[in-house]
């Protein structure tokens, strides 16, 4: 009987049930262990591979933790100024209407500095996909308050918790853009459990597929953790997210095929 203990003997084509998508590069990601960005990147890369649209896709990265996304996805990418990705993507899509164009943006990028660009790209019904990573905090700059920071939630610029009188309310940008006639598909997902990862992937795929229809913009919000910014372990941060973020940012579809869910 042959020795069967080496890893090389196990990793054989016939034994493979899952492998890293070819659309992800070999570059080691810089994300903190446990952060949702890496998972979201992988899902986008897998969808691009499965749809065989690597040469047909142009991505736009934000300013935020995901600024270096272009190091990880093996596709043509542009790095936008903070908040401006939807304007950048608008031009790409208008000039190359047959390409799949997406932006990938954090909450500060999309819902604070880039609010105008986000709303107007949505309202014009640009045929692009926006992937919106909502971790309730400014991750890259060290954990400051974001437009999506929950009331009472602590951050480095709301050290005693977000106070509504002083700092205003958290902004539900996803619900807001769902009201606009230019959006075709608006959904909120998460990537903290295997089940949610599968769902999020379906949503991401839908957002790419929708671009063929030319019926408007698709926005997929992914509620995510920021274990470093929240100062928690990855496991605790996911638990905290489900208990505290989901009541205010409930996962689920908000707009399907141009119609608000639960409305006629």
């Amino acid at each position: 009987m042959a020795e069967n203990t080496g890893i090389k003997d196990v990793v054989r084509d016939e034994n493979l049930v899952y492998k890293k998508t070819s659309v992800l590069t070999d570059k080691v990601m810089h994300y903190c262990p446990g952060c949702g960005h890496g998972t979201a990147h992988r899902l986008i890369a897998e969808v691009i591979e499965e749809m065989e649209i690597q040469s047909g896709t142009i991505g736009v990265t934000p300013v935020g933790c995901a600024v270096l996304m272009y190091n990880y996805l093996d596709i043509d990418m542009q790095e936008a100024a903070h908040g401006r990705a939807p304007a950048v993507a608008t031009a790409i899509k208008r000039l190359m209407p047959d390409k799949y164009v997406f932006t990938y943006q954090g909450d500060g990028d999309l819902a604070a500095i880039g609010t105008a660009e986000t709303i107007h790209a949505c309202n014009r019904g640009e045929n692009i996909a926006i992937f919106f990573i909502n971790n309730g905090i400014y991750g890259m700059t060290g954990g400051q308050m974001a437009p999506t920071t929950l009331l009472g939630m602590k951050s480095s610029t709301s050290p005693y918790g977000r106070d509504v009188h002083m700092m205003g309310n958290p902004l539900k940008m996803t619900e807001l853009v769902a009201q606009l006639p230019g959006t075709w598909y608006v959904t909120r997902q998460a990537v903290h459990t295997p089940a949610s990862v599968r769902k999020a992937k379906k949503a991401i795929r839908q957002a790419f597929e929708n671009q063929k229809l030319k019926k408007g913009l698709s926005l997929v919000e992914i509620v995510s953790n920021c274990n470093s910014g929240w100062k928690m372990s990855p496991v605790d941060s996911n638990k905290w997210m489900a208990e505290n973020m989901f009541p205010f940012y409930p996962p689920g579809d908000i707009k399907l095929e141009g119609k608000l869910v639960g409305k006629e």
Partner: protein
Amino acid sequence: MKGNEAIAEAAIRAGADAYFGYPITPQSEILEYLMAEKPHERTGMVVLQAESEIAAINMVYGGAACGRKVITSSSSPGISLKQEGLSYIAGSELPCVVVNVVRGGPGLGTIQPAQSDYFQAVKGGGHGDYRLIVLAPQSVQEMADFVDLGFELAFRYRNPVMILTDGALGQMMEKVWLQEQKPRMTIFPDWATTGKTPDRERNVITSLDLDSAEQEKFNLKLQNKYRKLEAEEVRFEHTDTEDAEYLLVAYGTSARICQKSVRLARDKGIKAGLLRPVTLFPFPKKPLKELAAKVKGILAVEMSTGQMVEDVRLAVEGKVQVEHYGRMGGIIPTPEEIVDAIGKNFLK
């Protein structure tokens, strides 16, 4: 046609792929003309009214990064909003043409013409060490011609080009000869994000490099490009400089007026001449320095409190007295005023 309309028509004929803009006086005719002209039907050119100048310049970034010929226009307050985007465009080495139909400032200022955005245009404007190639037309004809020239330079040097003009030239009507329609590009530069094909590495357009040594190297590369521009792309015109004792230096509208001032001065027996920078960056330092050795005084004439005059002084290296004459707030100097200013400054 109006200067603004000439720019718009010239953009279509230059084979531009897109225009993105936001209304502001005195240049709204550019967007209005393009919308009315339906360039989409003529050449397939995309025209879009953006939600702000910030969005417009970032659309320019997105389109330019796809290797397309993209143009935008605005006037001073709007150009201020575009500075962040321009810095990114310069830092990503993207070609584009940006038109500034200058109005008086600061702040909301006035809608009347001025030349008070010179510093912003030629010294970079946004953050970081970068330069725009700056072209200064003095007629409606040049408003049109510089669009095509602008694209040519922008693509040759992978650098944003600014056409620095003003409300007077934008609104002025003159006869203009327009070039034949150029076809839009069908082959795009190899750096453009047109979709990664299996035969090449992915293309990434970014201005980010967190490695300080690499960032310094990149800055040096940009500086080399600017030195090359200074060596090869300086454009200027001069009139009556052979025997001139007093040299006027002026660009754009001011240069146009100074031509008349030279005639008036010579009628009075004052040997005046004019040097007109056509490129403001790169600035015609060498011809100025040469002329400085021959003349008794230089008067920089600008519709500002004196911005270009600093570059004139740098160029002549103290060889000759350099003074400034300017009007502000939307006032255009008369040719007579300028002749008087020669007298007051140099002929006491």
